[in-house]
């Protein structure tokens, strides 16, 4: 174990917090399994924001992401019996989002949709519109060559600013595994987008 992986006081409190969340989720799931469907509403409220965040990153469109969130919670409810209540609920539903989102994206690949520009306020860019469009097309092309996990990890880290530990917790992966995928994804992206990166001042 490297020094950065050794547990400190902060890690210990995070572990306690994580355990509390698992216990809360397990209790809610037990109630749902016993027929109290209102308990699932609490699960939805607790997880819809992180689930939406992942869903949006997978499909790239707000309304599609909302539909995907609904679809994934329905699937989770339907297959709740297969959920191991000793494990955290977040990564379980995130996997559902990644799988269903990838299918949705593939099935909608023919529908040429521009990413939303009305709801997203992009940072001021040094690239002109034509170059941005070209860079975006190149980015979509290269993201399609990454696997779902790498795409999600590099987006969560480099766009949403999450740390490898946070991503690992969200995806139920070891931080080292996250870093490895991040390294690989960045390598591919840098190579593909080198021209646009070098154009930046």
């Amino acid at each position, binding site marked *: 174990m490297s020094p950065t992986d050794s547990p400190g006081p902060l890690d210990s409190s995070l572990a306690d917090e994580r355990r509390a969340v698992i216990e809360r989720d397990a209790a809610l799931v037990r109630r749902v399994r016993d027929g109290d469907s209102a308990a699932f509403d609490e699960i*939805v409220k607790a997880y819809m924001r992180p689930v939406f965040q992942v869903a949006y990153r997978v499909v790239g469109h707000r309304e599609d992401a*909302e539909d995907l969130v609904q679809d994934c919670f329905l699937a989770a409810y339907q297959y709740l019996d297969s959920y191991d209540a000793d494990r955290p609920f977040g990564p379980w539903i995130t996997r559902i989002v990644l799988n269903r989102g990838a299918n949705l994206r593939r099935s909608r690949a023919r529908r040429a949709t521009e990413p939303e520009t009305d709801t997203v306020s992009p940072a001021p860019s040094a*690239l002109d519109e034509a170059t*941005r469009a070209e*860079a975006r097309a190149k980015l979509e092309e290269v993201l399609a060559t990454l696997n779902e996990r790498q795409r999600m990890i590099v987006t969560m880290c480099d766009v*949403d600013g999450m740390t490898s530990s946070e991503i690992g917790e969200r995806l139920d992966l070891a931080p080292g595994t996250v*870093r490895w995928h991040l390294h690989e994804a960045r390598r591919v992206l*840098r190579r593909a987008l080198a021209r646009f990166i070098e154009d*930046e001042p």
Partner: protein
Amino acid sequence: MTDLHLHRGGRTPSAEPRRDPRLSALLRDLMGPVPMGDVDWDALAGRVGAAIRARQTPWWSYMQRWQRRALPLSLAAGAFGASILVHSWLTHPEALTSAPDMVSAVVAGAPVEHAATIFTHAVTSGTPYAADFLE
């Protein structure tokens, strides 16, 4: 440009990788932030809840489990009922023939008690003890 500190002899990075600000800036510019502020969370939670309640198994759907067996079961029940009917007609034919007498008595305006007596008499007339009792 390296953002890795590698384990000796391995390829797993052991520390938080340094960000490449230029790559991050480009990705943020191209992908934009997640529009968390544009989502009506209450409405979304309501939609999910409504979809789940709509999907919940209605009680009559349990009948679907018997759908394949329904036809043979009803055929068997019908055959069983028919055999009982035939058997009772063979053993007590008066029980079947007396029903029209009772109906015609009711239609003709006879009191219900009288119609019932006609029916009972017809059914039990084959039994000496019951006939004697009624007489």
